[in-house]
């Protein structure tokens, strides 16, 4: 196996560049959401970010780690990711609970940045999904042109809500939405998950910058395409089915932010490939038969637990394959 271990053991410059890219991507998504719903999504993200930094500071003090580790930015990425997965009209204590759980329970006890077994943001959002599905899955309507009020706790009766694509698919209904509308992100959902084309562009940008690995992302999307082609949603055109599946829930978002976390993903290229395929399959399974309309985070946590095994086995398998071939050639000679 290569000597590169985690992102924390690469050069400092590399970590900070990855973090910078992720924060940039998060801000782009937040701004897109703010264009639709008014500045409230940015408020949610900011609260989440501040909570993450505060919790990380406390954990650094308790763990007697140097305080400059807070500024390495990974906590900020976690906070922003949790913020991006909130509904724009969520009460502001919800992202605070999620982020605090992510940092204090899923990240710090394992040893902080670079040592966590599970993706902290996915853990935080999974807790929120389990505890407050009402808060998480009530989305404001995209048709109403008014900006959401900036109060910390919204009066839910004032906001026109809309059933999200994922919830419609969950009930077995076929959403009446145009292909173009999906591509333009013209549907309701969590803050960071509806900007379809922007998310795809960001994926390409991050791949070019080597922040996300093509060995994970390409198998992920390929598997999604294959599964939706083989098992389309209730006799739908495969292309529509694929787009709908990507647009609903956190499926597309997970492909950019959650499964690419360099700490929890495998390191070896073959392991990454297997990881991408498996996570696509699990995420679709959770999405279609799970209890919640967006079970992506549970799938991510499950696949995270298997990542080290996938890594090891794939490496051993690859080594054996190449090694045996070499040996055979030697014998033949």
């Amino acid at each position, binding site marked *: 196996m290569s000597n590169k271990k985690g992102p924390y053991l690469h050069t400092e410059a590399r970590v900070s560049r990855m973090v910078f890219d992720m924060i940039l991507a998060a801000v782009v998504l937040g701004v897109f959401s703010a264009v639709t719903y008014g500045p409230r999504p940015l408020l949610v993200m900011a609260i989440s970010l501040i909570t993450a930094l505060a919790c990380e500071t406390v954990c650094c003090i308790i763990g007697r780690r140097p305080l400059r580790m807070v500024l390495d930015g990974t906590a900020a990425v976690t906070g922003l990711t949790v913020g991006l997965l909130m509904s724009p009209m969520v009460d502001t204590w919800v992202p605070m609970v999620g982020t605090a759980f992510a940092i204090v*329970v899923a990240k710090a*006890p394992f040893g902080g940045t670079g040592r966590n077994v599970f993706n902290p943001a996915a853990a935080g959002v999974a807790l929120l999904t*389990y505890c407050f599905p009402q808060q998480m899955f009530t989305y404001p309507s995209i048709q109403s042109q008014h900006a959401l009020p900036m109060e910390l706790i919204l009066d839910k009766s004032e906001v026109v809500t809309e059933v999200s694509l994922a919830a419609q698919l969950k009930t077995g209904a076929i959403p009446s939405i145009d292909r173009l509308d999906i591509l333009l992100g013209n549907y309701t959902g969590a803050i960071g998950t509806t900007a379809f084309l922007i998310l795809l562009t960001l994926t390409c940008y991050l791949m070019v910058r080597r922040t996300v690995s093509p060995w994970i992302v390409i198998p992920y999307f390929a598997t999604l395409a294959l599964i939706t082609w083989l098992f389309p949603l209730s006799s739908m055109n495969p292309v529509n089915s694929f787009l709908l599946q990507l647009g609903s829930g956190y499926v597309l978002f997970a492909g950019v932010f959650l499964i690419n976390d360099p700490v929890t993903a495998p390191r070896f290229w073959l392991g990454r490939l297997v990881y991408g395929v498996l996570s696509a399959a699990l995420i679709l399974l959770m999405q279609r038969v799970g209890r919640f309309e967006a079970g992506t985070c549970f799938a991510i946590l499950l696949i995270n637990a298997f990542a080290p095994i996938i890594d090891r086995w794939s490496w051993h398998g690859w080594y054996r394959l190449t090694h045996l071939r070499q040996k055979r050639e030697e014998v033949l000679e």
Partner: protein
Amino acid sequence: MRKKGNMRREFWRTTHLLVENAVTNNIVLIQALGLCPIIAISTTLQNGVVMAACTAAVMIPLSLVMALLGNVMPKWLRPAVYAILASLLLVGCSFILERYISTELYAGLHHFIPLIAVNLLYARTVGFSSIMHPVATVMDSVGSTVGFGLVICAVSAIREVLAYGTLWSIPVGTDFTLPGVTAPFTAFILLAFLAATLQWTRQRISAFFRRKGEDEE
């Protein structure tokens, strides 16, 4: 004179057994025994206390009996006798709980009380009691019970406050409740944090005594 020294040594040895199982080598947090009831039903403090009481009621008499009879019996018979005695005691426990204490509590717990029989006691009582002195055995099982009771009460109190905002069904005045805390995963997380705290405290204490010892020398 020599006999007195022996007595004293025995006393400290048994006390050590008690403290060891209850606190420093806690049966749940360090030895990881008896996790199932804690994870499954420690959602209210009442459940926790009832479970701890049932454990005590089964474990202490049982270990005494095994200590007295263990040497007489052949090895292969011990588990069978143990299982039968434990089941008998548990039947009595469940009967008292259902008839005289609370039918509702029993309805919530009746799946888990029989689990006590095959749980943390099994390895300990059969393996330990049959070869030890009765007093040591009783001290050991009291220590184990106290250790188990402390942990289950702590976990269930925390979970009750977080999940329902009450303690022993009395409101404690917190508005914020996390309904998901009744799910098993939170018990795992709480146990992990408690275990970490205990390990940390243990290290502190032993470091303290080591430092003191070095100072004395």
